[in-house]
């Protein structure tokens, strides 16, 4: 990186360039090294974490981790309960994340579109503030909110109301709403203004510009936000703790039933384990959770590539 100036310096410049050129170069070096160090730090932390998890978790992987003594097919079909495996927790987590994503997708993306494309300055300020406030709510408070909601419902309209999968998914959806709104809005606002102008000049209506031109172009950013939201929903423990997760529910029986979830299983195992075997199973569960969120991201990435290809035109035959 010690490149000399390529073009010859103009003659009439005062000859101060050697001292004034030297200092920025050292500073540049320092900054470069710092950037490298930061990158190495991030990678090594991730690598160490993953390696430790793999070291402890991989030996436990197997049929027994997921299903205990129950035959897998019967367990998967829900015909036979699983007592000492994490299969119900996996299924519960999948249901939970799927349901939370389903619930958050419309409001999150819609709110982001409204903020970026339709809101006036006042609405933008107020709604933006509301989203920021919501983003600042700790997840345990969101759980408390869900819990209180159930208490209120029990005292008023629905005496038999109880914490359940639907409630937990709803609270999770609230928790991951702000990042989705923010990333949708940012994805739309980062598009060049010229795109809107082009659409307008062609005689497209505002809706056509937003939904047929801008949104497909912002799809990558929005999908990133969805991935972020799903990741957070998969890992959060505090919200579900107060809204219906239990240690032994088996497969979730329905939207209004209790459920198990991987993060809670990990937490519960770490806090309550009695044998080394049980602890090992906790590591196994952690590894599975990592794989689960990892494959969600890969899936979202693949989906995004397909969408992009269809939108932008085939680039593959290059």
């Amino acid at each position, binding site marked *: 990186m010690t490149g000399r100036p390529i073009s010859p310096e103009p003659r009439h410049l005062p000859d101060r360039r050697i001292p004034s050129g030297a200092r920025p170069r050292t500073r540049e070096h320092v900054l470069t090294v710092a950037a490298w160090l930061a990158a190495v730090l991030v990678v090594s932390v991730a690598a160490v974490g993953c390696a430790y998890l793999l070291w402890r978790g991989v030996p436990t992987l197997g049929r027994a981790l997921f299903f205990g003594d129950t035959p897998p097919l019967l367990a998967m079909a829900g015909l036979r309960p699983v007592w000492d495996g994490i299969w119900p927790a996996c299924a519960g987590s999948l249901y939970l994340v799927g349901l939370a994503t389903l619930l958050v997708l419309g409001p999150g993306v819609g709110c982001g579109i409204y903020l970026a494309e339709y809101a006036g300055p006042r609405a933008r300020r107020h709604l933006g503030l509301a989203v920021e406030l919501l983003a600042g709510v700790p997840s345990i408070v969101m759980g408390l909110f869900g819990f209180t909601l159930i208490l209120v419902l029990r005292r008023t309209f629905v005496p038999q109301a109880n914490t359940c999968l639907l409630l937990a998914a709803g609270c999770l959806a609230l928790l991951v709403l702000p990042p989705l709104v923010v990333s949708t809005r940012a994805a739309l606002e980062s598009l060049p203004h010229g795109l809107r*102008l082009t659409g307008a000049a062609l005689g497209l209506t505002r809706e056509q510009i937003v939904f047929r031109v801008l949104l497909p172009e912002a799809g990558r950013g929005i999908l990133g936000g969805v991935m972020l939201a799903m990741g957070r929903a998969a890992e959060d423990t505090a919200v579900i703790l107060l809204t219906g997760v239990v240690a032994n529910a088996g497969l979730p029986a329905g939207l209004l039933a209790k459920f198990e979830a991987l993060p809670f299983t990990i937490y519960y195992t770490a806090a309550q384990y009695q044998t080394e075997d049980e602890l090992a199973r906790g590591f196994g569960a952690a590894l599975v959770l990592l794989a689960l969120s990892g494959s969600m991201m890969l899936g979202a990435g693949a989906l995004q590539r397909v969408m992009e290809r269809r939108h932008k035109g085939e680039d593959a035959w290059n």
Partner: protein
Amino acid sequence: MELNIRDPEPGLRVTGLRVSFHGRPAVEDASLDLPRTGVTVLLGRSGSGKTTFLRALNRLNECFPGCETTGSILLYPGGRGGEGLADGTPTTPCGVPGPDGPCDVLGPSGPCDVLGPSGPALTELRRRVGMVFQTPNVLPMSIRRNLLLPLELVRGQLPDAPARMQAVLTDVGLWDDVRQRLDRPAAQLSGGQQQRLCLARMLILQPDILLLDEPTASLDAATTRDVEHLVRRLAADRPVLMVSHSLGQALRLADRVVIFANGRPQREFTPADLGGDAGRDALMQALL
């Protein structure tokens, strides 16, 4: 050679137009008539307000914050022969419903006031007053979608859409370049190809008035000639208002050269005026 702003049979009449951004006028007291056919070339120094003037005609300035437009812009019912594009596609008569209501631009019932409260539906106005920007602005999609998406959104599903696409691409001299790669991103085209694609995208919507903002700025000499021929052909049955920085192009192309300065059309020259040295001297004088 003074500005003869009034035409007995105008296609478009601008009177006392003023466009300001955040209170600073970019176009002021501008008046101009466009005849029903022929090329009017706007010449003027950078920053004199030519682009803003063009954008006022399809109300595109409204997309910018702090913009205020006053004055009057009248569109007259078209005296088009109905033979449409150079490829022979007949243009649809008025009454084709646009995406937000029936077309009321250039309707049979006298002029309509573009800026007035009962003016045309904005989207229909913009389809009928086609514009090519100073810098190429392809949509971030494939070449095919660049043409077919606007067509579909503005005119609905048309069975002959692919044929129309081929026709306009041929018109702008791009068909042979892109027929093999219609599904590749339009952004991969060269600057000049992109500009011609933008021209094709405007033409596929079959506009009644063309606003061209330096459409040949990034083209080589040969392509420039092709585009100029196309513009001449298109101008046979519709008004074309074109900004240019090239005197030679203005001389080759224009039925009328209008000098734009200080935010308004100042003087105009006809090819006859410019035939002699005196005329050219006057033109140079006016430009400086």
